[in-house]
């Protein structure tokens, strides 16, 4: 029984770890980008703003929150743009709505002139590094009421959550597999204890 448990744990640890490894690489590499990249995000290529005629959904100016985002979604789909709609900025005096749309690789801003029925579209292609940083932060804690308004943002959230649960499994199964190696117990225990003390020491220094 113990042998079967060991073999199954070892195989699951291996295969789940291999499946998860590209996600772990993504999250690990983007840590360096998020912690150290201070230069202003540079445009890889920004297309000149283009003005297009659109059919403006009724009530888009009066709508709020997710309802406004859904109506904005109708506008951006007419323009052939897809992505997560961020906080929409309203300029009531000019009857304008500024709709930022973002996804890995592309950032677009749709400046919707409601009365004229036109939209000025600016598109910027982002770098691969920016895409990794975006995915690391996505969906994130901000604008919770409207977040996940694009299917693929929700799909990524599901995968990011799955990454956490599977990392928990990998760490617990890793502890079990290490504990089975009697010859490594002392060295491993010392390292785990040292890691715990380092963790507690730094956290205590930062918060106290």
């Amino acid at each position: 029984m113990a042998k079967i448990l060991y073999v199954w744990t070892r195989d699951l640890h291996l295969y789940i770890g291999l499946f998860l490894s590209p996600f772990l690489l993504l999250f690990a590499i983007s840590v360096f980008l998020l912690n150290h990249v201070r230069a202003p995000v540079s445009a890889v290529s920004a297309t000149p703003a283009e003005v297009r005629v659109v059919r403006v959904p009724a009530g888009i100016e009066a709508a709020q929150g997710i309802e406004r985002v859904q109506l904005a979604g109708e506008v951006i789909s007419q323009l052939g743009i897809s992505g997560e709609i961020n906080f929409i900025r309203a300029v009531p005096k000019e009857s304008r709505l500024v709709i930022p749309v973002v996804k890995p690789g592309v950032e677009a801003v749709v400046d919707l002139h409601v009365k004229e029925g036109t939209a000025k579209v600016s598109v910027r292609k982002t770098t691969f590094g920016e895409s990794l940083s975006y995915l690391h932060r996505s969906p994130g804690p901000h604008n919770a009421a409207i977040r996940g308004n694009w299917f693929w943002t929700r799909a990524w959230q599901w995968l990011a959550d799955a990454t956490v649960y599977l990392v928990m499994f990998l760490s617990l199964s890793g502890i079990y597999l290490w504990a089975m190696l009697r010859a490594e117990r002392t060295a491993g225990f010392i390292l785990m204890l040292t890691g715990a003390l380092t963790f507690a020491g730094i956290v205590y220094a930062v918060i106290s």
Partner: protein
Amino acid sequence: MQSFRSQSLELWNRRLHYYLGLYFLFFLWLFSFTGLLLNHPQWRFTNYWQDRKETQFETPLQPRGPLSELDRAREIMRELGLAGEIDWPAQKQTQGRLDFAVSRPGLLHRVSADLIQNRARISRIEVNAWGVMNVLHTFSGTRVNNPAATRDWTLTTVWVIAMDAVAAGLLLMVFSSYYMWYRLKPKRRMGLIALTTGIVTCAFFAVGLGWLR
């Protein structure tokens, strides 16, 4: 028959994998768990902001000669006994005033100083353990939407070094796992399927979504 060098490499590669995992275990759990919390702001039990403790007070400041905004902020912090990372407001400072925040995980001080009257109004905001954990995940002294923000507190730098070390450790663990898997011939086919599935899924999000109409 494996050579001694090959056996030694295999042994030390395996050791590197679980030694790193054991050393960074608590860091990994913290960042994993807080990543989950940050992605679920709707979870009520972790909503720390509504349970914050906020107090306000006013205090006189010592008059000072002309100083840069950063030096003046540091002087004020020293006078008030505050320590932490300085956050500047997005807008430019008003003449004769200095507004800034001093933050550390769990504690935020918003300082609004009148440099003509030499008085400061301070808002002290304390959050619970959920708030501390949330902030630890993102506490780097930099802002994605504000490239001008820089680290100015030593302990922020220490925490960033810890975050970088965890990320570097994770990279090493992933690459050591590839080597261990490669050495297990009977597991290569199934492992390749698992790895390819992971790469395709991840690449779809990192690269493919940009091409999606």
